[in-house]
């Protein structure tokens, strides 16, 4: 099957409008006869569910959490981009489009990104109307901040919890429809398979996580808004329950999986403290606006700091290596996420990591405290040479800007970041890859849609800060509700989908078989044992920096681990009860397959682009020596993998990317 992205014809700025004008609609009376299933209640799933219900469809919504409000979109801190140009600093739809394509290292589909930029302004209007309490200025108008190294201030925010506020907005829209009976909500339900009837997605099989009951649910279309798969690394900033199962089951039923290797590693996370660690905590990258990143220049100082003999703040300036400022004088500490992350890894791999595990660098606010302290003293007419006073004033400024982050750091690490530099290390944060979708957000399975982080569509090889929230809400509020109508207009005479068909029966049987296997297989290791092992392979060999040898080994190791898993996994308890281990087993089983495809995709892509860095694709000389080298001639395509049994048998389909409105350039931050 060849890939058809179904991008409409015409100039890029008119595509979406023209397309909407000519799309098939379903009349309100008929919508009542059409059922839609939405899986996942984050920004994408929640907003889609609410909107579809408002339009009049019967919507069934599923989430594995105890309430739709808890989906992991809630954890997004920084903000949401929108081309409102409220600041009058030259922002526009085109500029947001351009920044997103460039930030994605020219590996995204132009038409999708332009549409995203186009609807971005509507999102802000919508959210404000819903009562989302965005930060405001004293004049009562919305405040913006700059984010992620772009040249304009277009990020709307609600302190450090924009994600929660936007999610509560979508949740409130859902609540309204639940109250009206248009949405039927299934909490603590996990989707375990997609059911296809006559080649079309017509339902799902779920497990009630409280009772263990396996249920069949039918609909005329199925929408997956199930988030990213960063937990394939075991340690990530994702929630503990975040998983790839929905996307992976869809993949096994014929949906192509695109660009699995594109992973975003966020540079400012709290380092791992020991083997007990269950997840990583991110701190907003806004910290890099004022913090300077360094490691000691000399190994002996590294050892002294590790042993506690030397306090980091006592190390002389000359003995410190501010490696980002050294390597990237133009952008310094504000280089994009992928560049900052790789540079930290490079230093730590060279033996300059500053904590016990050797995987941490310093993020130092001492000079910012000095600078702000002096400024404040000057403004207030106080003595600028009084060191204690300057420090105190400076700390106050820092506290106002980052107080909550500093407090969070102190709670976790038990060190006072006002007086000693923070320690940070990169962590897996977001996955740009996902289920392949066309312009309509439909997967290669008719009637099966995929939105938000779960799909691959808008961020290319690297996502800009504050763009994930934008994409989730754009897909759910403003794109999918239109495009799905085009498909559903053919279903107005179909009538209710029966769950008694043999397709449902077979799918349920398969699901039951796997559940039965887990609870009866008396293996010797817990699910976490395998998950942690998988995570180690992924992090060491398919992590921030990849090479042929490591990737080849990883593929073999993951395959071997998967085989061991199916022999030795141990799941206590039964299926007919709340059984978290059983739920985890199914998720890890899918991660063990995805991990291999992930490595295979990384091996196939013999270029460095965005979050994917290949050691064999770097600039060999000149000013950019050692930096990532993209290969537009051979790799300007989306890798869409078709399932054929084992991950190693997956077949690659290429969606060639055409850049008509943006000129391809190599990124430079020197």
């Amino acid at each position, binding site marked *: 099957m060849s890939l058809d992205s179904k991008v409409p014809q015409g100039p890029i700025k008119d595509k979406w409008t023209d397309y909407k004008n000519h799309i098939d609609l379903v009349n309100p009376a008929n919508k009542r006869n059409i059922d839609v299933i939405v899986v996942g209640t984050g920004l994408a799933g929640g*907003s889609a569910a609410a909107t579809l219900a408002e339009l009049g469809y019967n919507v069934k919504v599923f989430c594995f959490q105890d309430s*739709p409000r808890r989906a992991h979109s809630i954890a997004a801190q920084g903000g949401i981009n929108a081309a409102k140009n*409220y600041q009058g600093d030259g922002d526009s739809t085109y500029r947001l489009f351009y920044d997103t394509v460039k930030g994605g290292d020219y590996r995204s589909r132009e038409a999708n990104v332009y549409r995203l930029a186009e609807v971005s302004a509507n999102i802000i209007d919508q959210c404000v109307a819903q009562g989302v309490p965005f930060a405001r200025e004293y004049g009562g108008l919305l405040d913006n901040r700059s984010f992620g190294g772009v040249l304009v201030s277009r990020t709307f925010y609600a302190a450090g919890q924009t994600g929660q506020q936007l999610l509560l907005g979508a949740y409130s829209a859902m*609540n309204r429809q*639940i109250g009206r009976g248009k949405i039927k909500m299934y*909490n603590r339900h996990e989707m375990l398979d997609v059911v296809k009837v006559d080649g079309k997605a017509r339902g799902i099989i779920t497990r009630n996580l409280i009772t263990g009951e396996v249920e069949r649910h039918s609909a005329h279309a199925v929408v997956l808004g199930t988030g990213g798969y960063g937990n394939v690394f075991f340690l990530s900033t994702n929630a503990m329950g975040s998983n790839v199962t929905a996307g992976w089951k869809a993949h096994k039923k014929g949906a192509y999986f695109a660009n699995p290797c594109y992973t975003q590693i966020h540079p400012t996370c709290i380092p791992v403290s020991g083997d007990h660690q269950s997840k990583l905590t991110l701190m907003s990258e806004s910290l890099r606006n004022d913090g300077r990143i360094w490691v000691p220049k000399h190994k002996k100082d590294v050892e002294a700091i590790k042993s506690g003999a030397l306090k980091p703040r006592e190390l002389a300036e000359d003995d410190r290596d501010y490696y980002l400022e050294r390597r990237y004088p133009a952008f310094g500490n504000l280089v994009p996420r992928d560049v900052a992350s790789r540079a930290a890894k490079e230093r730590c791999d060279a033996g300059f990591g500053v904590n016990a595990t050797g995987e941490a660098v310093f993020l130092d606010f001492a000079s910012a405290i000095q600078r702000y302290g002096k400024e404040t003293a000057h403004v207030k007419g106080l003595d600028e040479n009084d060191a204690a006073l300057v420090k105190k004033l400076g700390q106050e400024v820092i506290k106002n800007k980052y107080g909550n982050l500093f407090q969070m750091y102190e709670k976790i690490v038990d060190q006072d970041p006002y007086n000693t530099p923070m320690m940070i290390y990169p962590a897996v944060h977001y996955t740009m890859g996902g289920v392949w979708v066309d312009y309509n957000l439909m997967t290669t399975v008719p009637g099966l849609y995929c939105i938000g982080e779960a799909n691959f569509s808008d961020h290319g090889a690297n996502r800009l800060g504050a763009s994930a929230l934008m994409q989730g809400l754009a897909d759910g509020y403003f794109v999918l509700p239109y495009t799905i109508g085009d498909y559903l207009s053919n279903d107005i005479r179909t009538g209710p989908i029966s769950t008694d068909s043999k397709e449902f029966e077979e799918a349920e049987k398969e699901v039951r078989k796997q559940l039965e296997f887990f609870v009866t297989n008396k293996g010797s290791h817990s699910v976490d044992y395998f998950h942690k092992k998988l995570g180690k392979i992924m992090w060491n060999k398919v992590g921030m920096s990849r090479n042929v040898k490591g990737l080849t080994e990883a593929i073999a190791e993951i395959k071997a681990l998967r085989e061991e898993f199916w022999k030795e996994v141990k799941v206590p308890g039964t299926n007919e009860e709340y059984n978290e281990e059983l739920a985890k087993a199914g998720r890890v089983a899918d991660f063990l397959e995805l991990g291999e495809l992930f490595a295979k995709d990384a091996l196939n892509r013999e270029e460095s682009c965005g979050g994917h860095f290949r050691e064999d694709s770097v600039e060999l000389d000149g000013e950019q020596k050692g930096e990532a080298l993209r290969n537009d001639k051979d790799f300007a395509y989306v890798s869409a993998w078709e399932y054929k049994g084992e991950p190693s048998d997956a077949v690659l389909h290429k969606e060639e990317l055409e850049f008509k409105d943006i000129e391809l350039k190599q990124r430079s931050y020197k």
Partner: protein
Amino acid sequence: MDMNLTLKIWRQKNASDKGSMVDYKVSDISPDMSFLEMLDVLNEQLINNDEEPVAFDHDCREGICGMCSLYINGEAHGPDRGVTTCQLHMRMFKDGDTITIEPFRATAFPVVKDLIVDRSSFDRIQHAGGFISVNTSGNTIDANATPINKADADTAFEAATCIGCGACVASCKNSSAMLFVGAKVSQFALLPQGKVEATDRVLNMVKQMDDEGFGNCTNTGACEVECPKGISLENIARMNREYLAASLKG
């Protein structure tokens, strides 16, 4: 300094089981662990001994999803302030301690299993009115068309920081949900967008809250102290005003 601890944990097979406290020992607990990571260690130990692991709710493990609960040594989310259980670190305890771990207790939060409770009553209160009736078409007025006083916007935001964990209910001697409902009512009452249907909202939400079987507020202030997000009692006072005004009107 690693720690050895005795844990007294509520075990209850399912909603209809009677349940009881059971003692466990864990050793070599690092002070850098979070409380939930300590429970992970216990569960790994139980699984390896062919015993059933302790069920507890958790998800984001960074203090924002509101999924984790636990009543630890007589306090919701344990002895630290301004944190959820997942952000509580073991350095708050010392070697040899006995730690009592119970589910959040309220008639409106029935136990599902072990330490997991059903908080869907919170969702139902929200269904009754926790929204502004505006369609998600995007065809609303421009976001900057209605300026909002910064102080009101900030107070609305503070109310909106509620993560719906239920610590307020668990800490209240009467299992009252007033802080939760007050926060939601306040967020909308403070914003011009929310004023339009403020009367119906507060009446419906309070009615649902009462129907769910939450207790009455006696202003002990325990909820505010134990709230991981520091939601203020002012929100309850505001809800009272809103409710009384709405009752007179409606």
